[in-house]
């Protein structure tokens, strides 16, 4: 039975680390976002192994259902024609890789190994389900709960305001002909040669009439 749990932990760990490595190394950013979703799923599996079921469900709901969708939206809305990463993706990657490797191997791993962790050895721990979490949120952690709610409201309003486009630049209805002409006149200094056909009777003939002068066309509107 222990071996089964160890194998499952190994598979989950492989999924998490493999997906995370693909996130930081693939060139196509949409593929990176999809690998990020795989990593989040692996982390939810790990929470299930650690018997934190509520947190696993919240991880899937919030990270995959909301944060990953937001990341995909941002990637799709900021697409560029040319790949921005070409020359500078890995400009400083060697030094960054060195820093990350040193951090992992020389700082974190020895600290973890050389410490004596106080493990709780009761075979049946209390189950931190929604009921216990609810009690804690309403009694001991009430103030952080309310502050988190205010933080989310501030983030919601802030994100909307930052990403909102300028309202007065947006047209809400079709322009009239006068407005269209005024707009084109201020956009291009020289008006186009043919604005309106001043001879509707001969409009069907194949003989093109000479182009009207701008004053004639301007008076005709």
């Amino acid at each position: 039975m222990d071996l089964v749990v160890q194998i499952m932990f190994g598979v989950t760990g492989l999924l998490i680390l493999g997906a995370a490595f693909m996130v930081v190394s693939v060139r196509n950013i949409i593929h990176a976002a999809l690998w990020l979703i795989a990593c989040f799923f692996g982390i939810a599996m790990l929470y299930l192994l650690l018997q934190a079921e509520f947190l696993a469900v919240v991880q899937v709901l919030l990270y995959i259902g909301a944060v990953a969708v937001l990341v995909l939206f941002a990637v799709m809305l900021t697409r560029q024609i040319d790949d921005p990463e070409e020359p500078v993706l890995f400009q400083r990657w060697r030094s960054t890789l060195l820093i990350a490797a040193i951090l992992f191997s020389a700082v974190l791993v020895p600290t973890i190994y050389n410490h004596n962790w106080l493990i709780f050895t009761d075979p049946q721990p209390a189950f931190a389900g929604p009921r216990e979490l609810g009690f804690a949120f309403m009694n001991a952690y009430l103030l952080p709960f309310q502050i988190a709610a205010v933080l989310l409201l501030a983030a919601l309003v802030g994100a909307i305001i930052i990403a909102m486009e300028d309202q007065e630049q947006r047209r809400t209805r079709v322009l009239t002909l006068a407005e269209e002409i005024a707009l084109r006149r201020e956009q291009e200094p020289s008006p186009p040669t043919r604005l309106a056909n001043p001879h509707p009777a001969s409009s069907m003939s194949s003989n093109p009439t000479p182009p009207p002068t701008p004053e004639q066309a301007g008076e005709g509107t």
Partner: protein
Amino acid sequence: MISAVPLAWVLMLASGLFCIGLFGALSRRHAVSMLMGIELMLNAVNINLVAFWRYTQPDEVDGMIFALFVIVVAAAEAAVGLAMAIAIYRTWQTVNVDSVDSLRG
């Protein structure tokens, strides 16, 4: 799980994930890629918290509550960060963070 997998393995998994996220956040030039690295780091911290809760104090809910607050803050920060990336794209037509290097005005 407690008897089969020692705490050190889970902590090493979390620290490996943290280092990969650190590498991603520091070496990528696309603003959204940097945010993905930051999300990986926050998830590594969450794994740490949940592992400590499960192995050392599973009869209290403090560890789980800490992890929930980390998720909440990470989601809020991702929303605002991605909104800023979109706003930067609208002004500069690029999301390469090396190119947005001058203050306006």
